[in-house]
């Protein structure tokens, strides 16, 4: 859903930029408060940047799980809901913003002039909507881990179509192509409800896994604190009764498996023989595969993230440029023809 340059006209892009900047400024203030506590934290240390950076890196990695949803549109995790639940709304906005910023500058994913639009829809709207939904649900649902996981699921599910709606709104104001708005709306929300399902399942699975092992890391969850025991000689039997996070993790894993399976099989349906390949290329192994001994998700961005193994090298670039020229020529011819028609009409009258 990264909007490129030229999709939204200049004035609206700039206005969106201004609004996004304001939202980021607000988040900057809020974030310092948000990440300033937690038990694991070293007293007084400033962990905002490192931990937000880590969440951003994770979002960046999961955003590379790209799966085409319908012709020409590919879905990937937006991550807004995940960020909102894990680190809170303000830091969440910052994390997603940073991801978008780096994607635009380092990988040309999303236009520079469209940065405002992208931040507004994918960082601000998703995070705010997700957090609102999540917060609301936490109020009504009974306290407990299941509620947190369920809340995360719902929040993510709603956040993605919300972003699509926001985008449609912006498009209505400053879209450059005259596509019927109703259709844009229907297509966008339709597709994004699908993407939202994927997003919701992955978000819930991740939050569930984190809850099971490190509940303190989930910004929105209350911690189950037990008082410290003090003694002066070693315990007779060191083996404290272990808790059992197994089942939850298993469930989370299964859920995630279903979703990834679903997403990936979309891909695979076009290429049934490639099932195995796709599982390896687009599954979790995506980033690790190309660089067996060294590398970074960043390095593989264009290759595995965007076009998979099917389009190689410059071919796709050539296709892009070729298509640009072809459409341009078409438009040019159309203009000439309509001008000529106009002139003919003038002459006749």
């Amino acid at each position, binding site marked *: 859903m990264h909007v490129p*340059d*030229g999709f939204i006209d*200049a004035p609206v892009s700039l206005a969106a930029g201004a609004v996004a900047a304001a939202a*980021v400024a607000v988040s*900057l203030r809020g974030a310092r408060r948000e990440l300033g506590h937690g038990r694991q934290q070293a007293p007084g240390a*400033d962990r*905002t940047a*490192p931990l*937000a*950076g*880590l969440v*951003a*890196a*994770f979002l960046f*990695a999961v955003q590379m799980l790209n799966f085409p949803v319908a*012709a*020409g549109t590919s879905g990937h995790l937006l991550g807004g809901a995940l960020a909102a639940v894990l680190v809170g709304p303000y830091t969440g906005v*910052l994390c997603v913003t*940073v991801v978008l*910023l*780096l994607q635009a*500058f*380092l990988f*040309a*994913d999303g*236009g*520079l*002039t469209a940065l405002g639009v992208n931040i507004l829809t994918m960082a601000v709207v998703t995070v705010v909507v997700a957090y609102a939904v999540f917060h609301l649900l936490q109020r009504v649902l009974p306290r407990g881990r299941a509620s947190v996981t369920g809340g995360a699921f719902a929040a993510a599910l709603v956040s993605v179509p919300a972003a699509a709606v926001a985008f449609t709104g912006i498009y209505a104001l400053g879209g*450059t*192509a*005259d*596509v019927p708005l109703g259709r844009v709306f229907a297509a966008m929300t339709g597709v994004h409800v699908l993407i939202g399902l994927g997003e919701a399942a992955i978000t819930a*699975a991740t939050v*569930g896994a984190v809850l099971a092992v490190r509940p303190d890391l989930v910004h929105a969850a209350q911690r189950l604190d037990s008082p410290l025991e003090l003694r002066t000689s070693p315990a007779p039997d060191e083996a404290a009764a272990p808790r059992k996070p197994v089942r939850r993790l298993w469930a989370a894993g*299964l859920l*995630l498996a279903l*979703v*990834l399976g679903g997403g990936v*099989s979309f891909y695979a349906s076009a290429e049934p023989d490639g*099932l195995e390949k796709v*599982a390896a290329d687009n*599954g*979790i*192994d995506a*980033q*690790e*595969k190309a660089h067996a001994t*060294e*590398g*970074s*998700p960043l390095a593989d961005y*264009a290759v595995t993230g*965007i076009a998979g193994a099917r389009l190689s090298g410059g071919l796709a*670039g050539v296709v892009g*440029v070729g*298509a640009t020229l072809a*459409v*341009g020529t*078409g438009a040019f011819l159309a203009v000439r*023809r309509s001008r000529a028609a106009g002139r003919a009409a003038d002459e006749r009258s």
Partner: protein
Amino acid sequence: MGAAPADTLYLPVGSPVHRLPPQCKIAAVCCFVVLVVATPREAFPAFAAYALLLACVAAAGRVRPGHVLKRMLIEVPFVAFAVLLPFVAEGPRTDMLGLSVEGLWGAWNILAKGTLGVAASVLLASTTQLRSLLRGLERLRLPPLLVQIASFMLRYADVLAGELHRMRLARLSRGFDARGPRHWGVLAKTAGALFIRCYERGERVHLAMLSRGWTGTMPRSEEEAATRAEWATAACLPLLALLVCLGGWTL
């Protein structure tokens, strides 16, 4: 770490473009793209002129055309979208194929501007090192907290890659190979565990930094602000683009 991600994006050839301070380049590219977007879509020669400008920059930066094209893969989803436009848009239709005229215009607009935007960003990323890009953004008054989050993100991207790599080797050495849907469960579980693993590894790295006296800002070598001459050099691109843009409006 740090150096690795730059390997495939950044082209380490010394050129005048590479040597320009990052903040100048970023500002120039941003202005350029804004101008491109602001150009009326009917001004065909203007777009040709923009493309020519970028080609000149690429030549000056010794960036091979193949490199730019390869990086432009990113555009593919939108090329597909644009190709659909002429079929779905409203308004009068052409005689050939019954395409929507308005749709054709829309497609052309998106593709031309999008392509130029992508090419400009690719040139920026090819001639500017990751870390100096961040420094440039910082100099352009991007809030320091955002810059810090970004630099940590880049560092942790390596942690993440490292963890993924370790997990993969560990699976392999115990006889696992991903074959078909039966193994998605394992892969999915890996994804779930990845977050915690990375988070905790990141936490430990952060602790290590703290224990060596880190207080929130990376130590970095002082460097001077860009000179007037450097700003002037970088300004060539947007200035020429401004001329082109104005030309486009007056045509």
